[in-house]
């Protein structure tokens, strides 16, 4: 199949960047989207041009590396599908495809389609863990966890940290990302004791790093390649209120 690709090219973080148009003659509906980009890069190399930089690694939808806006949608048109799992069957011969990086103040572009997601790392460092040193754990079956809660916790924990939720949000909020982590821990007895404080700290860090506020439009849930539910944001809000009380009480004391 023949494709017209409008790809965002930006040599470095300081470069202004622009769209460039390429014609790819020999694409195939058997390719995945990233294999199509591989083919584009092979073509660019053969023409002595700089290939398009894009992030990718596992190519099976679990590492969270791949991240691009495809025709204005994070990870393209298919529901619950990462870019690497997107099949070219989703496109037709002679289609024009616009490919650009995540657009969010907190995710500056490094090169072409690659953005800097360090902000997610900083949010995790603010509280995305249980305070527990290696070796201090009790026997694994000491605390029973209701099956329903465990299953829900797995659903929350399946977040791959790709950033599609931020890219989808008109406010570039990281609320779903934060909620998935806070909710996973809130559902489990191991994470509960510091639940409120965790929510408070992670949300504060998210605000500090320039992510916008959540206005409950639900775009994040629609575009999340792992189908993580908005219900986790509701749980985050409950944890956050708890955390607020704890913080206020601590300040009073």
């Amino acid at each position, binding site marked *: 199949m023949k494709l017209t690709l409008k790809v965002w090219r930006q*040599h*470095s973080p300081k470069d202004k960047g622009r769209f460039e148009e390429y014609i790819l003659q020999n694409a*195939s509906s*058997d390719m*995945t989207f990233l*294999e199509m980009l591989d*083919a584009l*890069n092979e073509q*660019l*190399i*053969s023409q*002595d041009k*700089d*290939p398009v*930089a894009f*992030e*990718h*690694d*596992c*190519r*099976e*939808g*679990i*590492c*969270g*590396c791949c991240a691009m806006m495809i025709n204005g949608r994070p990870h393209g048109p298919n529901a*619950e599908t990462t870019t690497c*799992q997107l*099949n070219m069957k989703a496109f037709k011969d002679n289609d024009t495809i616009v490919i650009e990086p995540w657009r969010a103040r907190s995710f500056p572009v*490094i*090169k072409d389609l*690659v953005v*800097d*997601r*360090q902000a997610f*790392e900083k949010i995790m*460092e*603010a509280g995305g*863990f*249980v305070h*527990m040193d*290696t070796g201090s*754990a*009790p026997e*694994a*079956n000491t605390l*029973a*966890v*209701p*099956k329903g809660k*465990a299953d829900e*916790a*797995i659903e929350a*924990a*399946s977040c791959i*940290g790709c950033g599609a939720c931020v890219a989808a949000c008109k406010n570039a909020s990281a609320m779903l990302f934060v909620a998935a982590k806070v909710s996973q821990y809130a*559902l*489990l007895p*191991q*994470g509960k004791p510091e639940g409120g404080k965790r929510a408070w700290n992670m949300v504060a860090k998210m605000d500090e790093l320039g992510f916008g506020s959540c206005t409950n439009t639900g775009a994040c849930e629609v575009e999340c390649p792992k189908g993580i539910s908005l219900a986790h944001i509701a749980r985050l809000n409950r944890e956050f209120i708890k955390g607020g009380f704890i913080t206020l009480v601590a300040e009073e004391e």
Partner: protein
Amino acid sequence: MTILNSKIPQGSLSQKWTNHKNAMKLVSPANKKKLDIIMVGTGVAGASAAASLGELGYNVKVFCYQDSPRRAHSVAAQGGINAAKNYRNDNDSNYRLFHDMIKGGDFRAREANVYRAAEVSNAIIDQLVAQGVPFAREYGGHLTTRSFGGVQVSRTFYASGITGQQVLLGSYAALKRQAAKGSVEMYERRQMLEIVVKDGKARGIVCRNLVTGQMERYSANAVVLATGGYGTIFFLSTLAVNSSGAAAYAAYKKGAFFANPSFIQIHPSCIPQMNEYQSKLTLMSESLRNDGRVWVPKDKGDKRSPDQIPEEERDYYLERRYPAFGNLVPRDIASRAAKERCDAGYGVGETGFAVYLDFSDAIKAQGEKMIKNKYGNLFDLYGKITGEDPYKVPMKIYPAGHYTMGGLWVDYNLMTTIPGLFAIGEANFSDHGANRLGASSLMQGCGDGYFILPYTIGNYLADEIKTKKLTTDDQAFDIAEKEAKERIQRLMNIKGNTSALAFHRALGKIMWDHAGMTRSEEGIKEGLKKVDDLEDRFYKDLKITGTTDSMNQPMERALRVAANFEISRLMLRDAMNRKESCGAHFREEHQTEEGETLRNDRDYSYVAAWEYLGERKEPKLHKEELKFEAVEVSQRSYK
């Protein structure tokens, strides 16, 4: 000839680790603050080790090529993690887990290391649960388990089909906690190119900053490689596209011996290659063989759709050949059995290189809801890639390159032959012999990282307190950086016509054909020649565009492919040397009448550790004899 000293402690097998720990030197908390450790790689082994070392008070510098440690390829492990908890009351024990691994590895692993791996397995589950890893539960709220290949107990803990992701995120969270505290410094988007050796000891690394293209120098008192395996040698594999043995190769070039390089696991259940554009293959977890039945038609070239083939015309060949273990035979056996059927003309699918993995009986017996609960995300993954619904149509699967049992040679302390250079997880060779059992890689990675390395590295560092700090303007760093720059310049200067991707694909084909599921003397010789020829072409015809002062992914790949040539030769030479069949290493000349592996314990009961002697030069073989005291060495049988 150097005699490899594996430093196995005295005492009975079950007492060795305890005795060893009791005899180790300690580093006081005040001195730990003065010691620097470099960790390269952030999969479960690297992340868990870095977090644990940070908790202990060492200064840890952590490096990975991705933008976050959470993306390391441990994330893709699906099925589970083993432990000898015996929660099922099915008579499991440390000894039984150890025995299963030794037997599964076809008696080519070091007894003491394997026993220790089993011994620390239970503490891993405790650790992970306390971290908030959401393992699957029974209705009563307690942890549940499932079965994996090569064992007759149920000891595999799991989190749906995303266990690796959950276990990795547990250690990643612990790592992030240390990063926040400042005991761990994170260096993402770095490709390690050289290990710096000073006065015979590993003292630092040189890496390329993948964003700025600049070379960077870091010094330390010890360096740990947790850089995974080299399965991408086949180009198409279940590994991440950027995974490679390049870091292990850099260590090998600096004097670390490389052990059993030809022991590479071909996983039996992967989604078959569908077209020539394909850039990777996707695993379908071994756990599926708990409920899925593997079969092909009894008639050659039967092109009917699977639902049109009645029960009596199906050949459930694993159940037929291995009645005791049925569909849950170890991976090497299941892979070869699939290849045998397909080569004989019984394969299914368009290419004839696939077999069915059929869930219809399990769905009938347990209901679709239960199967969905156990394997839902695996079924979704399969559906997304193939466009077929495995709840209705049997899956089509075929073997693919997956895991490298071989790796850097390490002693009982996980130290390589370069003092101060350690290798953990898949990057070392130590625990899986000639074949790894399912759900034991997460186990080994966590064991090495949480509970073994933090002790053994302390024992080494206790003597390093007196050693002077090495500054990064030392001549050793100048030399290492110069070598790294020259390597890059050499590749950039070729200015030929063929991309690194194309070379990688071509090399992968050679290795799959000549060092894949079966090997022969003639095939290996031919393979060696083809690898040499392709390497010659590589250095004449490689083409890299773009610049080295910013992100240049094809250049990164070219560096990995360059390392792959040498690793390929090493694999082929090792396969040539080992004139026996064991585990995943199947020499056509050495098989039983029934087509099973035929070991030669008299001549090959050793670890083959190879020493680098120069580019294209035949490496030198060192042998570590394997002594079995606690198990009876026998012909492996799963019948």
